[in-house]
């Protein structure tokens, strides 16, 4: 692909959503709903078309020339060898994959939100923010300069903030938005420090140059480890990983299309993309990689446990997102970058599907989100139930839905991620996550769609309109077939996907996840699949056949575990006790002591001094003209005497 073509494509794909955002935001309130719906969705469709052109170009490029970097303009230049920031963008297999998913899923969700937001007066604002999010996310994934990447990184946090607080008259939504934004700023700060570290050592912020200069870092040294840990903190904040994960469930306060687009399919997986993009640095820092893998698999396990006991339909899906992203983070942590990106791709589809189908249910039940008050939705919303079932199958990793391919592929590679028993321990945790995933996925499906309707709202539920149904059905079809032509989770079989990304991730040192031997691969695949099927079967017994009462089973479990799960491992309470309460206490002390006595004190002292001085002065203001004349005379005489003394000296 020539640089000129690449420049044109990058400009088009970035400016289309930005133009859509501006058009919807500025003209939308005047031109009305029809215009907003058309402009908002068509801009993303056009961007998707550009993304397809990019993908075709990248696939068609000859070996070794898949990556094209274009320089749009020079932003900051302090001379050679000094800081130079350029608006550079890269088109390579990784960014082509990302923009395909972002614009493709983004378009489907934009169409869906036309139906979901049909009664909302703020549709122009909504579409404007959504288009702006697509623009920010594309900036983030296309950036070939660390500063531009951080700009995109911060802009997606901003869009997320704006969209979580879309219904700003709800106090809980505003608080959730604030929480999400503050948590992500922690990650932003870590990213900026990582940028400092990279610049001090590699003397550039241009990503391809940094990756070409990895010899500037001592492999396994403290510097590269610190940089990678800081980058990982940025990724954890964005991807809702332990310990910066608490914002994601609260972010479900936003409209459901927002949850589907930002908090499931694209933005929260930016952390996975970041680590995959910076793989040349992470390859040099095994300690940081180990930490990333541990945090990923740990978060996957924890979120899976929490998802089992949540009662809000969107929060269950949010925790499952956290858990699945944990698996992706684990994959990039063990060096299985392509596997992580593969799970990202399938997850984006089936998780968007689950959210949109859940949105249909919420819409039909007049904004009911408590699953205990649902039940028996399936006979009234057959197509939605069917789509949600497909999403659950893919999420649970049932063969041959897309989730099975990507998850088993990822876990299988984990088997060879290093010497000794640790890979096996991590693998077994992953298998446990498989069981949990199948359990909570089908618990959600059975509790919502089967059994007896729990409220009158369910009786009145009707199938969603076509504009909301077609996107869901399209995603349902994709969630089944998307992985078939791409990748098969066995060694030496179909590997289109990892071959496509291969040029990006070439050069990973040995000792990281490699293809396992055929026997080991079969063993891993069988174990993982059995775990998923077992979990699904258990869920069937518990919540569909009611062979055992779920409540009785919960009583039989260790009560500490149940309480931990229900209270989300008490993270909100711990953070409130460790951060919130001390901060409030300091604030109160400052208010009571420092502000009145110190801050107000010196101001008040100054005021008193001035007041006393002015009272003294006032006594000279008698109003008698003769007094003024006398004063004037006295001072004139003094002036003359002083002048004479000074001059004659």
């Amino acid at each position, binding site marked *: 692909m020539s640089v000129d073509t690449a420049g044109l494509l990058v400009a088009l794909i970035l400016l289309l959503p930005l133009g859509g955002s501006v058009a919807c935001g500025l003209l939308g309130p005047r031109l009305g709903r029809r215009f907003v719906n058309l402009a908002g969705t068509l801009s993303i469709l056009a961007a998707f078309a550009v993304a397809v052109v990019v993908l075709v170009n990248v696939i068609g490029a000859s070996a070794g020339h898949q990556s094209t970097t274009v320089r749009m303009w020079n932003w900051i230049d302090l001379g050679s060898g000094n800081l130079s920031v350029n608006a550079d963008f890269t088109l390579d297999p990784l960014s082509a994959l990302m923009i395909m998913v972002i614009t493709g899923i983004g378009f489907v969700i934009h169409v869906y939100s036309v139906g979901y937001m049909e009664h909302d007066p703020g549709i122009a604002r909504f579409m404007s923010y959504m288009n702006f999010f697509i623009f920010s996310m594309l900036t983030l994934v296309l950036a070939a300069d660390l500063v531009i990447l951080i700009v995109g990184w911060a802009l997606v946090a901003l869009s997320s903030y704006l969209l979580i607080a879309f219904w700003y008259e709800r106090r809980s939504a505003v608080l959730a938005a604030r929480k999400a934004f503050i948590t992500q700023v922690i990650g932003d700060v870590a990213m900026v420090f990582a940028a400092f570290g990279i610049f001090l050592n590699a003397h550039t912020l241009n990503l391809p140059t940094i990756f070409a200069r990895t010899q500037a870092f001592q492999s396994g040294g403290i510097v590269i480890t610190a940089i990678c840990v800081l980058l990982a903190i940025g990724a954890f904040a964005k991807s809702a990983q332990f310990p910066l994960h608490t914002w994601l469930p609260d972010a479900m306060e936003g409209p459901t299309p927002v949850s589907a687009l930002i908090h499931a399919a694209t933005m929260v997986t930016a952390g996975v993309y970041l680590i995959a993009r910076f793989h040349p640095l992470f390859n040099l820092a095994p300690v940081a990689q180990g930490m990333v893998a541990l945090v990923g698999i740990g978060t996957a396990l924890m979120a899976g446990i929490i998802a089992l006991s949540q009662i809000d339909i969107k929060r269950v899906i949010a925790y499952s997102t956290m858990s699945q992203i944990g698996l992706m983070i684990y994959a990039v942590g063990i060096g299985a970058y392509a596997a992580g990106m593969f799970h990202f791709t399938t997850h984006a589809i089936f998780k968007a599907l689950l959210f949109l189908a859940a949105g249909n249910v919420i819409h039909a039940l007049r904004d009911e989100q408590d699953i205990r008050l649902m039940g028996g939705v399936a006979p009234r919303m057959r197509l939605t139930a069917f789509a949600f079932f497909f999403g659950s199958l893919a999420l649970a990793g049932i063969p041959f839905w897309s989730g099975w391919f990507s998850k088993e592929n990822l876990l299988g590679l984990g088997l060879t991620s290093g010497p000794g028993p640790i890979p096996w321990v991590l693998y077994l945790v992953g298998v446990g996550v498989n069981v949990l995933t199948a359990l909570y996925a089908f618990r959600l499906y059975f509790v919502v769609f089967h059994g007896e309707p729990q409220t009158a709202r369910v009786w009145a539920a009707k199938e969603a309109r076509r504009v909301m149904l077609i996107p869901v059905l399209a995603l349902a079809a994709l969630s089944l077939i998307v992985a078939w032509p791409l990748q098969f989770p066995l060694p030496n079989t179909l590997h289109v996907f990892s071959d496509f990304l291969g040029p990006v991730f070439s050069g990973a040192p040995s000792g990281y996840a490699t293809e396992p031997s055929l026997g080991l691969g079969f063993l891993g695949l069988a174990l993982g699949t059995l775990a998923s099927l077992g979990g699904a079967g258990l869920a069937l017994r518990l919540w569909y056949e009611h062979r055992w009462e779920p409540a009785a089973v919960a009583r039989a479990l260790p009560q500490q575990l149940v309480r931990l799960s229900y209270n989300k491992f008490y993270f909100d309470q711990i953070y409130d006790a460790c951060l919130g309460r001390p901060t409030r206490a300091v604030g109160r002390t400052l208010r009571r002591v420092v502000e009145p006595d110190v801050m107000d004190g010196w101001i008040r002292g100054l005021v008193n001094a001035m007041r006393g001085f002015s009272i003294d002065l006032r006594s000279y203001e*008698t*109003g*008698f*003209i*003769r007094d003024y004349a006398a004063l004037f005379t006295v001072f004139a005489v003094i002036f003359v005497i002083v002048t004479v003394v000074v001059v004659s000296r």
Partner: protein
Amino acid sequence: MITTAVFPYLLGLSAFMFTLGAAGVLIRRNPLVVFMCIELMLNAGNVALVAYGRFLNSQEGQVFAFMVIVVAAAEVVVGLAIMTTIFRLGRKLDVDDLSELSE
């Protein structure tokens, strides 16, 4: 012909007139007399200006004296107008009675 020997006496005359005027402004309560005292002070200045002009062999002193005369005339016009207005309001013409500046 005035010689330079007269110059100190002229300055002395000017100083005496100025002091007399200043004392009058401070002591007298009738605004008309106060005005006359101010005229006295201005004319003391004129005497000094003309004397200096002569002494330094320059025309500027006389020119400035004319300026002072013009300013004095203008000031008297304004001042007398104010006094007439105060009188019309039925107020006593006494500078100590006009003390509203303190309020």
